[in-house]
């Protein structure tokens, strides 16, 4: 959603692009002023207004420790550590911003405590809550009105580790299995699959990589015994677990995959795969 606001996308407003904001970095890792490692989702910068927005996109889960680390990011961290390119670093400003589709997130005590601006995608608009940005011109674009044709681009960052993205995550894992199978790679470890499936895999932090690996393993193992039995096989080779698709089943796999996704859409996930964290 946020990337779409600064990238030309038809049927989605891009007011940040009009202020010359660009995608500077996705999934960056750097240290804050206290030397703690931070890994926000996205940094947008505008040379025109000498400003950066550091985005954390959230559904429900807010980790207190993470918010505390973000509060210790200074604009000079971005400059000194080469995370923002602007023409006038001495007058450069930056804001941490929480972006979400969840209305309730603006009431979160951690977010309120640190006075982070919150951008919410709501019914008919995208609006700013809680605090202002340090860039006056940026504050003026809100609310951004949405019409009935507007739909956010959901493919620049296709899925996160949050529960809401589980169906999408499964689709990407299955797509990767099929694609690797078509390329002649019939037996695949979970890590090989995820390296192809997640477009930002290299810079996902270790903690979240483990979540993805564990979740994918659990999903594929379940599917090989259940809905994809006879199509997807689990193979053990020494200490490695690999997954193999029967090369002749690409089309029946597609039908079964859609049934899985459809079932999950209708019934919700009977067995949630991503770990559930308290809000």
């Amino acid at each position, binding site marked *: 959603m946020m990337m779409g606001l600064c*990238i030309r996308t*038809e049927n989605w407003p891009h007011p940040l692009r009009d202020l010359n904001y660009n995608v500077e970095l996705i999934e960056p890792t750097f240290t804050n002023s206290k030397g703690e490692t931070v890994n926000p989702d996205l940094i947008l910068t505008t040379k025109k207004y000498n400003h950066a927005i550091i985005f954390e996109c959230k559904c429900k889960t807010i980790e207190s420790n993470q918010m505390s680390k973000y509060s210790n990011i200074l604009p000079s961290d971005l400059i000194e550590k*080469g995370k923002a390119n602007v023409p006038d670093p001495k007058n450069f400003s930056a804001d941490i911003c929480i972006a979400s589709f969840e209305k309730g997130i603006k009431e979160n005590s951690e977010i309120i405590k640190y006075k982070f601006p919150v951008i919410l995608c709501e019914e008919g608009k995208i609006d700013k809550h809680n605090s202002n940005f340090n860039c006056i011109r940026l504050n003026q674009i809100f609310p951004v009105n949405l019409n009935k044709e507007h739909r956010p681009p959901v493919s620049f960052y296709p899925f996160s580790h949050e529960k809401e993205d589980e169906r999408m995550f499964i689709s990407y894992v299955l797509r990767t299995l099929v694609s690797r199978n078509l390329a002649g790679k019939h037996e695949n470890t979970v890590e090989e699959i995820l390296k192809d499936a997640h*477009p930002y895999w*290299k*810079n996902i932090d270790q903690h979240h990589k483990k979540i993805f690996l564990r979740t994918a393993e659990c999903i594929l193992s379940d599917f090989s015994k259940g809905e994809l039995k006879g199509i997807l096989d689990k193979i053990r080779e020494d200490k490695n677990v690999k997954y193999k698709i029967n090369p002749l089943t690409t089309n029946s796999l597609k039908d079964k995959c859609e049934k899985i996704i459809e079932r999950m859409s209708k019934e919700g996930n009977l067995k949630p795969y991503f770990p559930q964290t308290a809000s």
Partner: protein
Amino acid sequence: MLIQNRIQLNEYLENAMTNSYEKIKEEGEYDTYQNLLKTYIIESNVGLNELEKTIKSLGFGVTVTRTEDNTLSVVNIANNNIKVTFFADSFNSRFWLLHTIGNSKSTDGIIRKTVGTQINGLDHPWFSTGFLENIVKNEKDIFRGLTLKYDDIFIKEEDSIPIKSLSMKLWGTAASNVLKSLKSDNDLKNSVSISGIGIKRNFDGNFIIEDIGSWGKFTAKGTSIDGHLQILSELRKKYEETLKFIEDEIFIERKFNGVGYNLRGSSITIVLKKEIKDLDIFLNDLISSKRPFRIWGIKNLIDDEFVKVVGIDLHNNDPLDIEITPNWIRIYMNKGACGNTVMRLLANIQRHYDSEARIEGELSGKII
């Protein structure tokens, strides 16, 4: 005739072309299957050996004979019923030219089957309605006529729709007036899909009459082989520029720079003028893995009128993400993928669903 180089080939093709033209003049109407000079453009992401391999896999006997020019080969194809020769010019390694004077029923079939085989890296160029209309605007060319072909493959038989299929040949100077009338009719306007254009061009006392098909088939009559090759070269270049623009400027690049990812690129949106009534039925055909779309995918319902497809283009095994509503289709592909996927999608949506479908917004005019 033994062809060893391009000079010999041009001489051979020009003789064949002139003879058939003389015959048409003498005998009047010519049969569709007569052996006119035809050139098929093939979009390729592989070497010429893939062509041989694919044709063999279809059950044909194939011999490929190299000439003294390493970008020119003679491909002889035969089985019990068919015997044809193609002269394969791979000087442009991305867009091959396959010349033949073989019977068009046989040669069309072989080319369609060969290109339609999954994951072989071969495809047709897909000239959209807009691309073909633009050919006519060239001042050097005299417009002779056009063919329309439309077949709605997304609608079930029992549905009552104004036009299920339309096939029409409009030849003569008033053809464009008829086209205008068809486009202004509410029931017809989404079914006016141009499948071919006929032009004539003069070259210093010689001339060429060219029929250009939307799938990259060029049928030539006249007295100038240079004219035929010139028209081929111009249109191939124009199409190649469009593909290069899509691949270099639009396809998404996620570059890891050691600390994070830089992102460049965006999506392409096809805007429909005919609303999709049932996204599920539409997508079942679009991502069925079958020709003409050749897309495999998994549907994800985001809201009642917004679906995301996580797919694969089976032409090259390129990942493809599609976001679709009843009124538009957003396409995302990664750097390194083949831009022909976008053109295949656009041209075939025009041919099989909505001839008014266009790339709109900032990319309008840059991709037609």
